[in-house]
């Protein structure tokens, strides 16, 4: 409790003032948009309120657990992965077990990368470091999962005739959707590939800036940021690939019949 009280010092008050300033600027932009007929006021207000509340809770939880056990850190990441799976699976209402599939894809991508980073000592087991870096990896895995799933679903539904023509010629289901699996996984990787390409040129990520402010050698800070973004790409690749392969297996029956189209149309009607 003393940790929590300590954190409510001058910096907290400054943070609240800065948040108020940021909200005021956003509200001004919302009003400007409204002037041009763009009505985003309600959604912006909800998003601002949710964002502020969620980050305040995270700050409080981290303050409480700052020097906690590694297991507590892993538990927090597990909860984050579940929340990410809930978000990603909301785009797949027609797929049975979408939540489970999304969780498996996101957790696999994040777990492989976090374990690798811990093994390489690129990540420390301190909650204060493990949770923020882990959350970045989980968030990107979630985005990759949602993007791959959405792309695969739309490719399959747009090519039902071609897929069934292949099935009618005796093709394996996997062969009939192979180009769509490739496109879906690639589409999910593209934002992360662009992120890696533009690293240092278009943006200098917050972690690097934070490390430099804390007095870390800028060269190491730069290389470390590259490691983090590369690991984000790896976790996204695993999540995107796994969710696509899992969806592919759910798109057909054991008798090689395409059911994804039917699931979508049944759900819509």
């Amino acid at each position, binding site marked *: 409790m003393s940790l929590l009280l300590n954190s409510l010092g001058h910096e907290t008050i400054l943070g609240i003032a800065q948040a108020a300033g940021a909200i005021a600027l956003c509200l001004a932009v919302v009003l400007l948009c409204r002037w041009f007929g763009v009505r985003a006021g309600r959604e912006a207000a909800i998003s601002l309120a949710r964002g502020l509340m969620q980050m305040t809770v995270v700050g409080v939880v981290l303050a409480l657990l700052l020097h906690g056990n590694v297991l507590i850190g892993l538990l927090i990441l597990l909860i984050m992965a579940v929340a990410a799976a809930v978000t990603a699976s909301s785009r797949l209402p027609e797929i049975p077990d979408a939540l489970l599939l999304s969780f498996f894809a996101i957790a696999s991508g994040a777990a492989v990368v976090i374990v690798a980073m811990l093994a390489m000592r690129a990540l420390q087991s301190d909650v204060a470091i493990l949770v923020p870096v882990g959350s970045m990896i989980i968030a990107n895995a979630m985005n990759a999962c949602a993007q791959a799933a959405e792309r695969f679903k739309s490719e399959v539904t747009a090519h039902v*005739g*071609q897929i*069934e*023509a*292949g*099935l*009618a*010629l*005796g*093709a*394996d289901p996997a*062969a009939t959707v192979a180009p769509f699996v490739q496109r879906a996984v690639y589409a999910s990787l593209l934002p992360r590939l662009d992120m890696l390409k533009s690293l240092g040129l278009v943006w200098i990520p917050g972690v690097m800036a934070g490390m430099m402010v804390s007095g870390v050698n800028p060269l190491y800070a730069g290389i470390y940021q590259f490691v983090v973004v590369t690991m984000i790409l790896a976790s996204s690749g695993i999540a995107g690939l796994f969710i696509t392969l899992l969806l592919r297996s759910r798109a057909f*029956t054991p*008798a*090689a*019949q*395409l059911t994804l189209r*039917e699931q979508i149309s*049944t759900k819509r*009607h």
Partner: protein
Amino acid sequence: MSKRQKLVRSSLERDSQGLVALQTKKLSRVVAGKVLVEDVSVEVRAGEVLAVVGPSGAGKSSFLRLLNRLDEPTGGTVLVNGHDYRTIAPKALRRRVGMVMQRPYLFPGTVAANIAFGPAQRGETLSAAEIALLLDRVRLSGYQDRDVISLSGGEAQRVGLARTIANGPEAFLLDEPTSALDELAARDVEELVSDIVHERGLTCVIVTHDRSQAIRLARRTMVLESGKMVAIGPTKEVMARVSTAE
């Protein structure tokens, strides 16, 4: 009598004596409470051409998809040469019971790659000579290297036919193969279908909304309405009965 007429006649004689190649037993499919096909029992003899007609939404295409097991029956089954088709691996079943759809749905690439697709799924490679022969058969000699994007509707449908024949099927399921074509191309494809079916002695089920096409191609016709079989018999008799009822 022309060569074509002789082929059709010999085929008609053969199918009156043939064994049952395809048989549906109380075949049904219901999706989300909607009846698509209901208790359809029909026999198709080896080498016979059976036409399936009926109004839009009668379940004709659904019936054909069930024969190819692209959809799963919710009731009844299909026997292929006396064997329940659920005991046959789907890949093998679909090679034996080939299907030509309303639109050809060619795969991106060349005509040759499309024709070689079916055998390639079984690890077999069609030689250039075999591909050329199949293209000759559908009157598209020299089209091997053409990109499918450059084909007309009629040409694409003929490539679709050649692609299905390349699998060496015993039975042919045709889902309104000429409905998306202009009159000239439609007649051309219809003649080609008729020739191929008769010269190879293929058992054939053709869905058509064109009654005159049914009369030209099929000896027997089945009428579907709301998923149910309401009439079956010699095509001309069935058509006369349907016309009288209307």
